């Protein structure tokens, strides 16, 4: 089964709904009125994209379509174009759909280091397992560094995953300095000629300064061991996250210069629209989405599918 099939299958329903549900609101042949815009605004807000993004879209609609007869396809095109513009930001990052590893920046030679961070409970460890699986499937030799030495049994959790996946893991006892685990992970990867080392970190609320400092220390230690590393700093974001996601992206980026987002838990009813706001504010792209609890449920981010799924009810 192709990598996209699963996501597409899940989203097929979305597309059908989109056609009927939005069509009901924006009926062709009727005049687009302010009350209808207001209703559409509420739909935008429900995606967690935030007031600023929602207003930008409504403004565009108001300018182009209010007071005119609705042609659904035209209105929808306006919305989709605006959403995609918001999602692509300035850089217009797009990756090759046939290359699951294309969003990642690899070291020109030698070992590539991926640092993974995020607040508590967003699904960092699970996302790391999925990413390791994806890398391994694509012929990369992976080492995991169990850097969450704080939460009880976090090391065990990642160790269990490493056993299931058959990848090497570097651990230290609970309570050790996470930077030393990151260092040991990098050292092990260099020793064994591994392609990629993924460094897990403990969840931390972005306003905890001491913990954020600890995170930048981890980054420094990695850079010391592997010049130019970490090549990717991925911020894992829970798809149910609301407007606080912006604060998360800002604080983490300030500390460790994030290179992209992993949007986890997109298999519920939450839309993850906050990534629009984050893209708008920070120009930080989504690289992967977690769409289920199975190890294979990590997909490349596809703006088209994402935009369609935003209005699934």
């Amino acid at each position, binding site marked *: 089964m192709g990598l996209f099939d699963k996501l597409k299958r899940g989203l097929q329903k979305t597309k059908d709904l989109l056609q009927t549900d939005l069509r009901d609101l924006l009926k062709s042949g009727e005049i687009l009125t302010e009350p209808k815009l207001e209703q559409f605004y509420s739909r935008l807000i429900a995606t967690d994209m935030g007031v600023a993004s929602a207003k930008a879209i409504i403004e565009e609609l108001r300018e182009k379509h209010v007071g005119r007869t609705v042609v659904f396809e035209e209105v929808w095109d306006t919305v989709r174009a605006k959403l995609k513009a918001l999602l692509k930001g300035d850089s217009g990052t797009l990756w090759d759909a046939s290359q699951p590893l294309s969003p990642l920046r690899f070291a020109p030679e030698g070992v590539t280091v991926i640092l993974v961070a995020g607040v508590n409970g967003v699904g960092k460890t699970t996302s790391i397992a999925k990413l390791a699986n994806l890398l391994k499937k694509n012929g990369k030799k992976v080492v995991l560094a169990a850097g969450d030495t704080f939460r009880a049994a976090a090391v065990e959790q990642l160790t269990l995953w490493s056993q299931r996946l058959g990848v090497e893991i570097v651990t230290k006892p609970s309570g050790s300095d996470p930077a030393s685990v990151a260092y040991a992970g990098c050292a092990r990867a260099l020793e064994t000629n591994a392609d990629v080392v993924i460094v897990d970190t403990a969840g931390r609320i972005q306003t905890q300064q001491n913990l954020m400092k600890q995170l930048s220390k981890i980054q420094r230690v990695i850079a010391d061991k592997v010049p130019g590393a970490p090549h990717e700093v991925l911020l894992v974001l829970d798809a149910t996250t609301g407007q606080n996601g912006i604060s998360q992206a800002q604080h983490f980026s300030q500390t460790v210069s994030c290179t992209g987002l992993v949007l986890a*838990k997109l298999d519920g009813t939450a839309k993850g629209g906050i990534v629009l706001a984050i893209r708008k504010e920070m120009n930080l792209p989504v690289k992967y989405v977690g769409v289920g609890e199975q190890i294979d449920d990590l997909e490349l981010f596809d703006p088209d599918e994402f935009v369609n799924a935003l209005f699934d009810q």
Partner: protein
Amino acid sequence: MSRGHSTFMFEGITKGLEGALSFLRGQGKLTEQNMQDGLRAVQQALLEADVQYDVARDFTARIAEQALGAEVLKSLKPYEQFVGIVHQELINLMGPVDHSLNLRRGELTVLMLCGLQGSGKTTTCGKLAKLLQESGAKPMLVAADMQRPAAIEQLRVIGQQLGVPVYSEAPDSNAVRVCQNGVAAARKNGDVDVVILDTAGRLHVDADLMREIEQIDLKLSPQQILLVCDAMTGQDAVNSAKAFNDALELDGVILTKLDGDARGGAALSIKAVTGVPIKFIGVGEQLDKLEPFHPDRMAGRILGMGDVLTLVEKAQREFDADQMAEQQEKLLKGKFTLMDFKDQMGAVRKMGPLTQIMKLLPGMGKVVDMLSSADIDPEEDLVQIEGIIDSMTPRERDNPDLIDMSRRRRIADGSGTNPSDVNKLIKEFSTMSGMMQQMAGMNKWQQMRQIKQMADGGLFDPGAQIQIAKKSTALGPLDKRAQQDKKKKQRKDARKQRKKNRR
């Protein structure tokens, strides 16, 4: 990139309202027309705080109804009155709360925690157990999360930390069975009166897992079913809370991760849509960081008005009243020494990380943002200051004037700082103790103003010099005695002058 977008925006809600309603000044009544901007600002603030759209819309409609025709009180600015109405309505909506867990006397009570993945169930189990322990109950934890790898192990570690028994089985067991066996084990144990079931995180749309938790509910009929919800959750909070409530009839909600800068609008949405009350809030990773929910504080938080009450409570808990009184007396007498200064800083630090405390103060959120963007950690400064004071002899602490160049060098060596740091501390301390003596003679309002001046002058910016507050020319020096004498002299002079004039 606009820094601090979210926090800034929320911090600004009261300010936004002030602007929107400023033209109300002098107008007698709040009318539909003159309130429009204010209502819009409120709705936007609620949406930015993740309150669900429909809830926010209904809420503003109710505010309009209440505020309509309300006389603008002379003593208040219109926006203050308006914010007051909003604040009160938020409190009404989120309250009243009942913090009880309905523990049964002489019988085993079963509590069940449920929620989405990553909401903090396992940690909250530990926190609840600790809370119960402290109130004299004997809790036991049951590890019924068969989904997440090592979840059982995590609960076991937490149990060990608390000295609370944990019932667990192999990871491939059936969750319903584990809960049944756990409760049986608690009965058999005899020394347990509350059982807390830690269930697996599940999506509310996952039919299989929702059936499983309904089964647990059916087979064990827990006395309390609590939903654990992440305070950072956006618009979807209502959907999941509704689904869990439909399946299980929730008794309460525990809102977690409120130690960050999330506004926690989910609290309002969940209460408004499901009617299930918020019972507790989680405010940190440590196991003692579970607090009863207070609607008034949450209302302030959602509106970005700061959380002053929590701060006051924290202060009351941490400060030793006697020590405070003693220090106040010293202050009044002008005998406040570096040692007292250090004690006070210690007391402040006990309350938690400085930045966290400052965040609770209205308007201070921005200062914290500023500090962190400038990479200034007030905490670090405190450590340095403590180090310097520790390296002084008792005599030097009592009388910093003694400290000459060679002493300064010795202190700097002892504390791993530069002589200039020592010098700066001494200088700032003498400015500060001067100001504190001034403050001792002021009333509360004057003190507040003084503190604000201190903050503006760089209290939280170690690079800046604290300015000496401009003294009021009308009052003259603050020494009461001197003032009285001065007045006496003035009266005497005036009398003399009048006499002279008469001649």
